[in-house]
């Protein structure tokens, strides 16, 4: 137990914090319409921000998937036996910059084609014999090495043709970089817009309450004491809006992913369970922080002595 002065100070702090929490919560309820308007405004803004994060996550996945697709396919001549195919694979593995070489039989190629069509088309109903050749999938260590690898693979005996899509590969590489950069910039701009909109919304709620602030100051409340209830109220507004945005966005995204992947199986969307934790943390942090800081900044202008 500390000396009486310390105890008194602790008691005063506890009383002041209790007042701030009670006043903040009471004001939130008492200013019903204003609180609802502020929460709605923050909710809509956070919804847009959260949607941007979801889009960014999916773009990131598309870019990563596109980079994984950077490979050269060496189609083999018909009639090669197992030993010849093994020798050919070994020669390809010896080419500079090659990471992996994998044999894909014509049967496997056909199966993949049917899978990519959603299993709804049986190719054998269309053509009697499998028209696809055996092939080797060559993955480069770096996407930039692909043109040289393709050139070297073309010279290997037993290779009929090499499709590397050098031009497309270059474009994928550039597009992936652009998508990441543009997505990042868009999310940052949206975050900034969200912060500005929330600050302005909170400023309006504070302007409507300037009499409260004036009276608090006139009866001798310190600036920090005046700020605290508004700080709590701002956090409640931001927190409620963020939580509502997380729940709505989570439900909408889950529904979207479920329906979209059912309709278009080739879509590789980030599952809701994987995407939403990041969104939830971002929205709650932005909602609480901007709510609290926004009110503190807005209140400050009413606390100045002229």
């Amino acid at each position, binding site marked *: 137990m500390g000396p009486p002065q310390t105890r008194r100070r602790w008691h005063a702090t506890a009383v002041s914090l209790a007042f701030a929490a009670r006043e903040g919560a009471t004001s939130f309820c008492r200013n019903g319409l204003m609180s609802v308007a502020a929460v709605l405004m923050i909710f809509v803004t956070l919804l847009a921000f959260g949607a941007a994060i979801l889009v960014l996550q999916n773009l990131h996945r598309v870019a990563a998937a596109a980079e994984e697709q950077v490979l050269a396919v060496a189609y083999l001549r018909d009639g090669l036996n197992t030993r010849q195919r093994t020798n050919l694979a070994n020669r390809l593995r010896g080419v500079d910059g090659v990471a992996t070489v994998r044999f894909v039989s014509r049967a496997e190629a056909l199966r993949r084609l049917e899978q990519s069509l959603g299993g709804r088309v049986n190719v054998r109903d269309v053509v009697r014999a499998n028209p696809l050749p055996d092939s080797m999938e060559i993955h480069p260590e770096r996407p930039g090495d692909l043109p040289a690898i393709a050139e070297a693979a073309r010279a290997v005996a037993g290779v009929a043709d090499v499709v590397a899509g050098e031009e497309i590969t270059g474009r994928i590489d550039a597009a992936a970089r652009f998508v990441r950069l543009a997505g990042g910039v868009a999310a940052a701009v949206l975050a900034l817009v969200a912060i500005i909109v929330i600050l302005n919304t909170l400023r309006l709620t504070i302007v409507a309450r300037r009499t409260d602030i004036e009276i608090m100051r006139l009866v001798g409340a310190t600036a920090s004491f005046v700020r605290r209830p508004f700080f709590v109220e701002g956090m409640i507004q931001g927190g409620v809006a963020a939580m509502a945005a997380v729940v709505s966005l989570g439900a909408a995204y889950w529904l979207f992913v479920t329906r979209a992947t059912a309709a278009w199986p080739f879509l590789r969307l980030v599952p809701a369970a994987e995407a939403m934790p990041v969104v939830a943390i971002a929205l709650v942090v932005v909602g609480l922080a901007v709510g609290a800081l926004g009110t503190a900044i807005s209140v400050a202008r009413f606390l100045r*002595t002229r």
Partner: protein
Amino acid sequence: MPMIELESVSKRYATGIQALNDVTLSVEDGEFVFVVGPTGTGKSTLLRLLYAEELPTSGVVRVHGRPVDARHDHDVSALRRSLGVVFQDFKLLPDRTVFDNVAFALRVIGSPPEWIPAQVRQALEQVGLADCERALPRQLSGGQQQKVSIARAIVNRPRIVLADEPTGNLDPDTSWDIMKVLSRINLHGTTLIVTTHNKTIVDVLRRRVVELAGGQIVRDERRGRYASDLN
């Protein structure tokens, strides 16, 4: 030691308006002072300087013998806790009861919650509103609202009460009622400074009268009237 002192105080607003010009004034403990004069002569500015809502452009303002220092937030708060301020427009919180409006003044200065009810009821009794504590301001007359404002000003038992046109919005009978309440507070030893345009009240009560004109004190009489006897 004077309760309130202004030493060569001038106040010029950013707009260029010279509200006060070289004002020197001293008010003793327990005095009742009327500040009179036409609109725009600096009466409200004088009060605002006393509760540090404004800072003087030059000169020194002292309250309780200490210079008013608005540079530090804690000094301003400490000063305002030692004063009660009453306004023409009452400045009540419309969505709170009479009790809560008065208690607000104690809550925001961190008074122990267990002290608050007794102090609020005592202040309401002093202004004659003991039976209205659950009412909202809009359910009260103008005079009753002003009494709530006075109760809020005295609930912290300040030694000085400043009233800026406390009867400005009230009819004559209600104005008298308010002045009786303020006089009672002064009888308990509280120093009172009241700005007013109410000639009758000033002439009947015959208290100290300080007249401002053009931002300067042009008359200071111990038991004065609203207008100078020379006029």
